[in-house]
């Protein structure tokens, strides 16, 4: 029965860790989504502020990636990193490029939302 209790303890640890990692992914991806929403609004209204904000977002993404890389597939994160790397350059161009900058922001936002959608314990993901 000793093994039974050891297995039970391990199972509890696994469940705790799985729930924690799921909540962590949710928190990080929602934080990034909120930042991107702010950036989208700024891109439409104040281009200079959007440039500063996009530089801050790049740093925030680097930090978030350190957490997500342990929990989510690297290919997905690599794709987002590639897009985020373009942001500052796109934001620093003149307003004629703002259409591409906005499109890129929406693209990144959908991919960031997908990180959480793919990890959420829903029936769609389970089956």
């Amino acid at each position, binding site marked *: 029965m000793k093994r039974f209790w050891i*297995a039970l303890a391990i199972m509890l640890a696994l469940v705790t*860790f799985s729930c924690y990692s799921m909540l962590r992914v949710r928190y990080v991806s929602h934080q990034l989504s909120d930042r991107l929403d702010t950036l989208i609004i700024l891109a439409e209204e104040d281009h200079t502020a959007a440039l500063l904000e996009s530089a801050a977002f790049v740093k925030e993404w680097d930090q978030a990636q350190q957490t997500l890389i342990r929990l989510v597939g690297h290919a997905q994160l690599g794709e987002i990193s590639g897009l985020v790397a373009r942001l500052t350059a796109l934001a620093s161009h003149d307003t004629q490029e703002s259409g591409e900058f906005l499109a890129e922001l929406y693209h990144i936002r959908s991919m960031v939302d997908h990180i959480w959608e793919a990890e959420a314990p829903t029936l769609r993901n389970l089956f």
Partner: protein
Amino acid sequence: MLIVLIRTIILYFIIVLGTRIMGKRQLGELQPSDLVITILISNIATLPIEETEIPLVTGIIPILTLVCFEVFSSALSLKSPLARRLISGRPIVIIQNGRLNQKEMRDLRFSLDDLMEQLRGSGIFDLSEVQLAIVETTGKLSIYQKFPYRPATAQTLQIPPPPGQDNPPRVIISDGVLQKKALAACNLSERWLAGLLQAEGCTVQEVFLLSAGSGADYLLVKKER
């Protein structure tokens, strides 16, 4: 490449730990659920080793989950005969009183070739020698021969046991290390051991193997230089 190496080492220790937690059932003959778990674990373990883009926890969590569920299902089988029957099945008698039960063989998809192969593996070449044969849940065939064909035992030959033959020999010294519990189990003293080693002209550290029974008969193998 270094990542692959480190992940392999980590997963190796996790699997060894998992096998230890699951217990000796995995190392002996496999029940159906044990076989499934073993195959699953080996397949899952290769994923994070081959694909470095997958987080390592993607391999560790399912492996440990399977280990835990194996322990739970075996604990449940221990407590509940119904659970045992559902998880492992039940042994099936295919030869009863020397007669083949062809219906059970058909249900098991156990052919005559399978039967004869397993009988030959047990040294039986004539079906008429078998009184009872049972297909265990592991797929192994357990055989009970008719009386004239059973190996003679000391009891049937009415041979009285020589003294000190109740317990099997034990390893007293293994690769230069004294096993005190084994020495005590054979009712032998350290003084006896010291006398034996002196007669053989060696020390404990120079002995590769010393096995002895409670009758003080022994086998000693010295280490090769």
